[in-house]
């Protein structure tokens, strides 16, 4: 379980990029849900935390693929693969992410940096 950020520092409609390996994006939707997915778009190298949040969907800021935050499914191309989702718990006002054990769908040309590397 990784502590992400205090709940009050993530207002509704906002996103937070957690510097994990690979990075994780945490979203607080307008209707109060919190979701975590891999931050890197599965299409190419863009950060989904920088994307456009609408309902339970995030639109990639680069080529506008849409991902369902609940399932990670692609709702609009060009992305071909779903983005990995992570479980979230809120305890004592802090958002925690439980990283998924499933393999990440990283885009071509983007590798996972070895732990601890800069």
């Amino acid at each position, binding site marked *: 379980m990784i502590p992400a950020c205090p709940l009050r520092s993530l207002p509704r409609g906002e996103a937070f990029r957690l510097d994990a390996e690979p990075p994780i994006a945490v979203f607080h939707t307008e209707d109060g849900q919190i979701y975590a997915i891999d931050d890197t778009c599965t299409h*190419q190298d*863009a*950060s989904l*935390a*920088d*994307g*456009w949040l609408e309902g339970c969907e995030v639109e990639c*800021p*680069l*080529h*506008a693929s849409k991902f369902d935050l609940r399932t990670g499914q*692609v709702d609009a*191309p*060009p*992305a*071909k693969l779903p983005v990995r989702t992570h479980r979230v718990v809120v305890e004592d006002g802090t958002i925690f992410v439980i990283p998924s054990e499933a393999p990440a769908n990283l885009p*071509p*040309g983007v590798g996972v940096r070895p732990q601890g590397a800069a």
Partner: protein
Amino acid sequence: MRTVAVVGASLAGLSAARALRDQGYDGRLVLIGDEPHRPYDRPPLSKEFLAGRMDEADLALETETDDLDATWILGTAAAALDPGERAVRLGDGRTVRTDAVVIATGAAARTLPGTERLSGVHTLRTLDDARALRADLAGAERLVVVGAGFIGAEIASTARALGLHVTLVEPAPAPLAAAIGAEMGAVVAGLQAGQGVEVLCGTGVREVTGTTRADGVILTDGRRVPADVVVVGIGARPNVAWLAGSGVEIADGVLCDATGATGVPGVVAVGDCAAWFDPAGGAHRRVEHWTGAARRPAVAVRALLAGASATSGSSGSDVRPPEPPYFWSDQCGVRIQFAGRTGPGDEITVEEGSLADRSFVAVYRRGDRPVAVLGIDLPRPFTRWRKRLAAEALQSAAP
């Protein structure tokens, strides 16, 4: 409507095919493309693919969930359109009968006259071009890029990162000046120079020298720059020659209304070959960007399907105007994003970040109205501005 033919099997054609199925068209669908390849993505050709970080499989545009139920005719060009006969004639003599046509034949790279006889001179538009350039760069030390539009500037940056000595030559005062204005183009010139690219603006190329293989260029100011490889990146012209005699009106591209409909009923045009009427600018313009080729086909297909059901053949009134043009470019280790359109005299203010940090969002205003936004390495605020421009464009188009 029983058959729709999509001519051009790349991004705009594939997007049109998807839009047809998404919008409920269940008749026969034929895609005709002159390249032998399944639809592939071009932007990486000057970036990750050229750098060797992506391979050909990564370029595929189709997804596993695509279920187009289409007939593909690849490796064969459309040679003529005969709307009266409702037919597309193919280069190999065959004819495809069809009730409607989506024109999506894109554009081809312009070449420098007189360079055809020389090896070592490249343009970059297709996968085959990219393979050839990648192979040629592998053995080269000095590259001259003629033209600092997006593709030229990206190739310069990629080749520099591969370790080549690169000279970027541009007659305009700055790189990307036509798209983002000279003032912000100068910022890009600074990024290129900072990476070690020699940027020569305000001068053109008079001649590419060499007997069988290019060995350099002579600039309009008389200077000579040696080169092992020369890339010509001086824009693209729409692939519309095959439409001669079809009755479809052609200027710089296929003339369309603001929904992609041509003057010929049952014929729409999308992507780089199409000059849609731009209500904001009051003129027809081609938009040669990925996002336009990916998203506008849904608008054109709506017009096509509405036209098929309306007796007048006019496009439906519920058709929304297209979003302001958007493009991105990766070069010099930064991501450039731009939305809207700029013209001379626009006032530019930096709204977030700073030029010094090479990370900022700049907004272009005409009078008090924001008309365009440029982002360098700040996607989040850029996207908010882009959405705002789109919302304002929608509002001002509302009756």
